[in-house]
């Protein structure tokens, strides 16, 4: 039997967080379909092990920098689900007072530097945050998430180089879900292995199964420790898959149903769940309880968002300047 290196309490937490992300995203899709909410939402379903595993590999007082596909990051870092939901509704009780929306979740309390709608734009910001940590002689690190698509932005390369030269405590977490919006990795670059990009900057790079929450956790822990010791940045490529289309209107013509099924068979939640049950770490009944509790939590979050007031027009100019 495969050895499963996780304690009961942590296993329950990882499972809970992955369920939170999955059900949050499924719910958003449902609400979009019913026109209860509007706007764009890029859903994280399928990629749960990346956010949950990586956040489990750092300390609560470490930082993250998020992307347009950021619901999962915010949840994994411990964001308040009802406030995240309310933000996606555009309600004043949302984490950004309804001014940000799905693409711009942020939360200083959980050390989430926020999400950007501009692909790649969070990468140099994460470098700057790591620079500040270094200046403060902090032991903390920054996890910078971005997709396979962002790796072709000039700013990725500029940032990688700068972080390498200054040996900054930042982990570049590439969420390789095989596509940008429709552009397959191997059609817009000449490789499938994006971690190799780090070699040009003298930075260690490694790929990991992004459907395996413990594998992601382990590799992030390893490089976070190096970063804490002043050894500088790393590039971690998590091979994963987004279950939904890029956005709601996406007919997914650029990929096959077979490919989707193949990845769904590696589902990060089911895989982890059966692994821990089989290893006797937590029982099936406990897993089911967690699942049911999370379902309820998401329903409660929706109710909270629905019952929350809209921002008032007079608040529109507030927060433009500090």
């Amino acid at each position: 039997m495969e050895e499963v290196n996780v304690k009961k309490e942590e296993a329950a937490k990882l499972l809970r967080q992955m369920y939170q992300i999955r059900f949050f995203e499924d719910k958003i899709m449902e609400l979009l379909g019913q026109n209860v909410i509007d706007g764009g939402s890029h859903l994280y379903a399928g990629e749960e092990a990346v956010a949950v595993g990586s956040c489990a590999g750092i300390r609560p007082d470490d930082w993250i920098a998020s992307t347009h596909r950021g619901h999962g990051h915010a949840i994994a870092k411990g964001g308040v689900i009802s406030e995240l939901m309310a933000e996606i509704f555009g309600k004043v009780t949302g984490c950004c007072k309804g001014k940000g929306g799905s693409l711009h979740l942020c939360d200083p309390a959980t050390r989430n530097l926020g999400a950007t709608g501009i692909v790649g734009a969070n990468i140099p910001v994460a470098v700057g945050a790591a620079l500040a940590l270094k200046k403060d002689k902090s032991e903390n690190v920054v996890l910078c998430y971005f997709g396979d698509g962002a790796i072709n932005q000039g700013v990725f390369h500029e940032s990688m180089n700068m972080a390498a030269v200054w040996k900054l405590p930042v982990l570049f977490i590439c969420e390789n879900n095989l596509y940008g919006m429709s552009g397959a990795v191997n059609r817009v670059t000449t490789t499938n292995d994006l971690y190799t990009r780090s070699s040009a900057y003298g930075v260690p790079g490694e790929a990991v199964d992004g459907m395996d929450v413990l594998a992601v956790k382990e590799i992030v822990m390893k490089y976070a420790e190096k970063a804490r010791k002043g050894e500088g940045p790393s590039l971690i490529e998590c091979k994963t898959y987004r279950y939904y289309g890029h956005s709601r209107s996406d007919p997914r013509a650029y990929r096959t149903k077979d490919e989707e099924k193949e990845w769904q068979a590696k589902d990060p939640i089911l895989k982890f769940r059966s692994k821990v049950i089989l290893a006797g770490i937590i029982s099936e009944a406990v897993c089911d309880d967690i699942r049911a509790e999370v379902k309820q939590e998401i329903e409660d979050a929706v109710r909270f968002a629905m019952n929350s007031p809209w921002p008032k027009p007079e608040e529109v100019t507030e927060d433009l300047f500090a």
Partner: protein
Amino acid sequence: MREIAYWQALNEALQEEMERDPNVFLLGEDIGVYGGAYGVTRGLLEKYGPERVMDTAISESAITGAAIGAAMMGKRPVAEIMYVDFMGQAMDQLCNQAAKIRYMFGGKFKAPMVMRTEGGAGRTLGAHHSQSLEHWFTGIPGLKVVMPSTPADAKGLLKASIRDDNPVVFIEHKMLYKEKGPVPDGDHVVPLGVADVKRQGKDVTVVSYSRTVLVALEAAKILEAEGIDVEVIDVRTLAPLDIKTIVDSVKKTNRAVVAHEACKTGGFGGEIGMQIIENAFDYLDGPVKRVAAIDVPIPKSPVLEQYVIPTKDSIIKAVKEALA
């Protein structure tokens, strides 16, 4: 006349120009199988193949630069930047390279290229997918800037832009793609630098462009019932600006309102208003009024988003103030 949607009109323009000139090709993110974020390039990959409908990586700076280089070598690239908000990534190439190549090199090179993009609020997409940034480009001599409001103009102006020998920033509006309107058959070309009077009137001139033209026309209809006769001018191209058509109208109505979706401070309305004052001061019977977005990033919340951008009510109010 047949009626087609704005996106179809643009699609037709691309097809007709690709048929006419083998040097025309398209490049951009997700323009192939995906057909573009708003569907403008639908079917073109199938028809013209990957050599002329080129999907790129997410690399706006290189997309723009590659268009410039190809244009300098005699091609006629039409590059798509999915949202005008992403133009930040393309700015150096566009403003320091494309815009200056002709002049800085003493007229020895030219860059005949079109940067198609799309802007505007209305879909509650938040601060990075809703902006109106035309004034970034109008402040750069050497760029032409086009913002069509109707399917017919979209088609005719895109064809003219592709045939133009200069870099043209062609900004569509995300809320117009599904709007239908009459489009003439045949080789329908609308020259750059010519404004269009979308509605004749004698009491007040409303100058606008892009989606706000439609809002102004709605406002004009309501004001008509109150006995106020509004003339609506669609500038269509911001650079070069057809100031003569605007001034001629103001000389007739003696009142002017400028309306757009970009923020008020630094928005292009300031330029239009100032040019009206410079050229028709003696004809004005009151101050030139501006209707524009509040000076904030576009907020996500649907209630705030609608509050920030001009509505028919805000245009009606400004018209009444101009007449007061």
